[in-house]
């Protein structure tokens, strides 16, 4: 935890990530590409002019087996990389601030913090049938400053997060330090 250290007396209240359903959507292309080498011979057989090419996909031969193994390895590693990025993107609410961590790609990371006393407005947005059924939405936090705005898209139950943020924003600070 290099760039996000808790201060004395600070504790994590809630940590949220993008909804799992949206993550599954990101995995869908990998799932299709993984199934492709198994489905292609069966699809080719259905088209008579191309049926003879179905026998190319004979995975009992060492070369095709190696090709299949490499293909699956690339797809698996890519999907795992997507999971890594999904997990490293997070919103962390503590009793003192909100921190957003955006891992756009490897070695490209943005971390921002907003102190709770500076929060002025919290807006949630849930649009669409699937989003309403699964409780997927966006949350936008605006500060008292000029143009500071935190937005997290596609989180689970944003209204619960909003209530928790407002609860901690309205809570009386433990010590003023004055």
């Amino acid at each position: 935890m290099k760039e996000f250290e808790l201060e004395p007396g600070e504790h994590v209240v809630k940590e949220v990530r993008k909804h799992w359903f949206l993550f599954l959507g990101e995995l869908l292309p990998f799932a299709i590409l993984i199934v492709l080498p198994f489905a292609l011979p069966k699809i080719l057989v259905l088209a008579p002019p191309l049926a003879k090419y179905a026998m190319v996909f004979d995975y009992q031969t060492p070369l095709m087996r190696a090709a299949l193994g490499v293909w699956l390895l690339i797809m698996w590693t890519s999907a795992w990389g997507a999971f890594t990025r999904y997990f490293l993107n997070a919103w962390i609410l503590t009793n003192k601030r909100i921190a957003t961590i955006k891992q756009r790609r490897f070695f490209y990371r943005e971390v921002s913090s907003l102190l709770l006393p500076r929060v002025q407005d919290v807006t949630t947005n849930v649009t669409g049938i699937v989003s309403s059924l699964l409780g997927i939405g966006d949350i936008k936090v605006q500060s008292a400053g000029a143009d500071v705005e935190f937005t997290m898209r596609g989180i689970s139950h944003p209204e619960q997060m909003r209530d928790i943020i407002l609860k901690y924003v309205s809570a009386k600070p433990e010590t003023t330090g004055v």
Partner: protein
Amino acid sequence: MPDQPLQPFAPPVALLQYLPGGFSSGIAVTWILYAVFAFWAIYTLVAIYHWLAYSHASWVAFPAMATHILVSLALMSYALNGQAFFLSNYLP
């Protein structure tokens, strides 16, 4: 709309016969496998570094890394000698 029949194309296996002299298909496949495995190793090291540095000591980190390495090693083994260990039931 073209009325010519589809022209057959050379499958990937047949292309290996066009390799220059002294460079067998076995050597080509070996080097391709080396390149893929080297890329996998670098990518995995980078991802593991991110897990260890930025996952906030989450309990998910080590199972995620272990799963990735186990599945990857099984797939590598399958590519090399057809032995996929715990994935054998799912692969031809």
